[in-house]
Structure formats: structure tokens, C-alpha cells
């Protein structure tokens, strides 16, 4: 029987604390296990002895990867696509969102364009014609195949457009009276006042570019052009070996699991590094999407 009011309350507190902690750990432990495996000896890993701490600590997987030119080539392709793709996403989101945030009386085409863009956003175009189109443009095996098809982030355009609409019109009008043209209004007023929103959408497009693997797989015929996620996908998931004989010899000293875990961990690292920033911004990013009335 309940004797004091606070006792069941305390138990309840403990129960939810434990449940939440377990839920949190369920997402964290597999990642820690990967790190531990990557730092363990071959024998310990094949014996299934590694859980959360490295057994037979050594860095040989990482020294191996340091010398693996294919891994770093793929890494650099990813860096290139993140920089180029992120930049394109940023510029196009700003350039497209600004005219769409205007009133129809100032920009008569606004409504027609808005519907076309939204239609384009919800239209789930088929994989085969999408591939054939990119093939038609001769983009296969170039970095442009990885950045141009996704250069226009329509959802970000919508978010940014809603944000621009929330900026007081007085700022705009004052600049116009001083003789500024729309281009100057955009870069001197709208862009500086929307920096938090711009940072959020840019961060999201960077993560998107880093994580994308499928376009690399189908749009790159030459494995040398694979971005990192595609390279890892082929190696770890499809278990397709793209090694030369020298590497194969080195590999015999390492456990495949250890090496894979190290590769997965290095591929995760950039995300872990921007994660504090992401966490700071993404809640804002989600509420940005809402229309305030």
C-alpha cells in the first residue's frame, strides 16, 4: 500500500530515469563497440571478446588506413563534394528563396513558380529516367554528377522563404528609398539578418552530402571517383574487394572486422565533429519550417 506520497513518486523517477538511460545507451553503445573493435587485436576480435573496451589495444588498423591511398582518395572526393555541393546549395537556396518571398504584386511570376518548385519537390521522379538524364548530360564520372542534381534544395528554399517573409518590411523599404536595387537588398539586408537560418540549412546540406552513397555508386563507373560512403559501402557492405597485392599482404596481419570498424569510425568522425553545432541548430531548424500566422 502507498504509505507516503513521495515514495511512489521517487520510484517513478527512478524507473523513467533508467528507461531513458537505456534508450540513450542503446544508440550510443553500438558506436562505442565499433571504436573498441577498431582498436583491438585480431585474436580478440575473432574470438568475440570485444564489447565496449578495446582488448589487445593497438593502432595497426589506423596505421594501415593512413597508408591506404584509395581510402584517402575517396575521402578527398567526399570533401570536394561537400565543399562544392554545400556552396551550390547555399547560393541557390538564397537566390531562389528571395524572389519567392516577394509579394505577387512585386513579382508577378511568383505564384506560378512557387507551385512549380513545390510540385518538383514532391514529385518522386523514377530512378531509371533520372539516371538516363544525367547520362544524357555527360556528367557520369565527374564531380558534377554528385553536386548538380541535388544543387537546388527545394525544402531549404521553402524554409528560407518563410524566414525571409518574417523579416520586417521596414528594413527593406528604407533601403529601397535610399536607392538600393533588389540584389543589394538581398545581400546587405536579408542575408545578414538570416544568418542563423542560413547556418542551419547549410549544416544540413553538408551532412547530406557527406552521407550520400547511392549517387556515387550509380553515377561513377570508375571506383577511383567514389566518394567515401560509396567506397565503404562497396568494401564493407557489398564486400567487394578492391585491393592490390601489396595491400592484401598487409591485410593478412589485420582482422577484416578491425579494419572495417576503423573505416566506419573515420567516416563517422566528421559528423561527430560537427555534431555539437548540429545539436545547437537543429531544433531551431525544425521550428523554422513552421509558418507563423
Amino acid at each position, binding site marked *: 500500500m502507498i504509505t507516503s506520497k513521495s515514495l511512489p513518486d521517487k520510484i*517513478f523517477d527512478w524507473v*523513467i530515469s533508467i528507461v*531513458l538511460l537505456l*534508450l*540513450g*545507451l542503446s*544508440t550510443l553503445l*553500438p558506436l562505442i*563497440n*565499433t571504436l573498441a573493435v577498431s582498436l583491438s587485436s585480431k585474436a580478440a576480435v575473432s574470438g*568475440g571478446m570485444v564489447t565496449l573496451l578495446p582488448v589487445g589495444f593497438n593502432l595497426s588498423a589506423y596505421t594501415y588506413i593512413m597508408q591506404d591511398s584509395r581510402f584517402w582518395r575517396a575521402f578527398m572526393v567526399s570533401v570536394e563534394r561537400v565543399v562544392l555541393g554545400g556552396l551550390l546549395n547555399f547560393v541557390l537556396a538564397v*537566390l*531562389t528563396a*528571395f524572389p*519567392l518571398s516577394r509579394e505577387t*504584386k*512585386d*513579382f*508577378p*511570376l*511568383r505564384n506560378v*513558380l512557387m507551385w*512549380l*518548385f*513545390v510540385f*518538383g519537390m*514532391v514529385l*518522386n*521522379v*523514377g*530512378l*531509371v*529516367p533520372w*539516371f*538516363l*538524364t*544525367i547520362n544524357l548530360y555527360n556528367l557520369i564520372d565527374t564531380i558534377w554528377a554528385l553536386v*548538380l542534381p541535388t544543387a*537546388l534544395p*527545394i525544402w531549404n528554399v*521553402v524554409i528560407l522563404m*518563410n524566414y525571409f517573409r518574417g523579416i520586417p518590411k521596414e528594413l527593406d523599404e528604407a533601403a*529601397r528609398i535610399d536607392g538600393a536595387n*533588389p*540584389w543589394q537588398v538581398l545581400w546587405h539586408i536579408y542575408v545578414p539578418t538570416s544568418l542563423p537560418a542560413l547556418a542551419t540549412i547549410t549544416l544540413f546540406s553538408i551532412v547530406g552530402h557527406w*552521407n550520400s*552513397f547511392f549517387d556515387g555508386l550509380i553515377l561513377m563507373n570508375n571506383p577511383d571517383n567514389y566518394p567515401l*560512403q560509396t567506397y*565503404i559501402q562497396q568494401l564493407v557492405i557489398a564486400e567487394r574487394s578492391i585491393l592490390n597485392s601489396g595491400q592484401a599482404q598487409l591485410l593478412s596481419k589485420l582482422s577484416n572486422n578491425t579494419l*572495417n570498424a576503423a573505416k*566506419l569510425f573515420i567516416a*563517422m568522425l566528421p*559528423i561527430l565533429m560537427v*555534431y555539437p553545432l548540429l*545539436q545547437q541548430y*537543429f*531544433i531551431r531548424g*525544425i*521550428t523554422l519550417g513552421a*509558418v507563423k500566422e
Partner: protein
Amino acid sequence: MFKKSDSAWYTLMVLPGFILLVAFTFVPLVYSVIAFQKFNPALGIQGSPWVGLDNFAMLFRIPDARVVFTNTLFIASMKIILLEVVAIIFALLLNDLRFIPLKKAVQTMVYLTHFLSWVILAGILRSILARGGLVNDFLAIFSIKPIYFLGNPDVFPWVLIGSEVWKEFGFEAIVYLAALTAINPNLYEAAEMDGAGRFQKMWYVSIPGIAPTIVLMISLGIGSVLNAGFDQIFNLYSPIVYTTGDIIDTYVYRVGLTQGLYSLGTAVGLLKTVVSLILIGISYLAANKLANYRIF
């Protein structure tokens, strides 16, 4: 104050985006006419013979199509339902947690998986779900026999559903946490005065308070019941589990690109495009009517 020169500026600014929209969305849409052809890349659209609805007729004859369609619907709808249930429970519990450092720590842990790619997570899952992997080792403590998570067709769809929930529940909970903070604290006080306990406060105050958000998320989910999660399944499945794990998108990839049956792949894709568009229309209307949702 309408100025003609302003309008010209705006048109110029929107032009690059519009060109990309045409080049990578509308041109592929036009290219979809090869669904009505026996497309041969060497001949192109102009040279390939037209076959009317043959590809679609074939689609309805092959047994694969039905399997793939039902798998997609099952996996996608179970994902939507279970993801929302777990996210709601998680948000309710987290909202009730008074120990702030733990709250922050848990939040930091659960959002991370959302930002990791399915390539990486599948790599991790393949290792921990393997025969001698972490999960089977753990189950062995309770003398449960090893489960072939990725090789048993009966288990595989649940691995997909479970791992999707695992990856996304934290992030999905953010909208519910935001809705919970918007509930007027007076309502909780009033409930307390009436003698409500913590469960009762959740049931009679919190849940009704986030009901519009629940309705919204479910409505928006309707639009994605044909997207069962290509990236995830592509990185976890294998021919042994095609019977229960193959979905429209993976099927289109194999048939259309790997086997080079361009027209058949396009036909499947086009059907999906059309049905998806209708579903998204319905989901948006529902979200708009039931939860006053608008995107612009």
C-alpha cells in the same frame, strides 16, 4: 510599389534554380515515356519502338511485383506507426524527467544516430547482429538460441523496422518535445489540484496537448508509405531475404539499372511516382484540414 526593373531582378535570381528544376526533375519526367517503349539506349527515345502498355501489363503478370508492393506497404507503415509510438513515449518520459543533466545527456545520445548514414549504421548493425555478434551474445545470457537477424526472412522485416525506430526515434521526438513545452503549465497545476498523479497528468493533459502534432505526423506519414527506406534496405538485405525484404525501390534498381531492363524499371518507377503524388496530395490535405498545417 511595382517596378518593372525589380521584377527583372527577381526573374534573374530565380533563373538558375529554375533551370536546375527543369534539368533534373522535369526532363527525367519527360524521359519516363520510355515506360511505353521497348527502350534501347543505342537507339534513344526517337528510335526505340513504342509498345503501348505492354510493360505495365507485364508488371501485373510477374509475381515479383505483388511481393514487392506488399513488402513496401508493410515495412513502411509499420515503420511510421512504431516510430511515432516510441517517439511519443520517449518525449513524454523525457518531459517528465526532473534531473536536468540526465535529460541533456540522453538527448545528446539519441539524436546522433539520425545524422549517421545508413552505410555506416548498416556496417555496424551487420557486425553486432551477426551470429557471434554483440546482440546474440547478449541473448545467449538468457539462453536464447542465436537468431539469424539478416538471413531469416521472417525476422528480417522486423530488423528493418526496429533499426529504423532505433535510428530515428530521438530526432522524431523533437517535434513532440516542442509541442509539450507549449502546453500551459496551469493545466498541470489544475490537474494536480484535482488529485491527478503523474500518469494521469500525462494521459489527461500531455497527450491531449500534443494530439494535434500526432495527427499531423501521421497525416504526413501517409505521403511516404511507398518509401520503405531504400538506403537502409539496400545496405542490409541479401537474396535470402528478398521474399520479405525486397521493396519497390530496390526492385527498380536491380531490374532497371543492374539488369538493364530500362523500360520495365521505368514503368514500375512511374507507377510509384503517380501513386506517391496522389498520396502526398491526400496527406497534405489531411494535415491541412486536421492540423492547420501549411508549408508556405
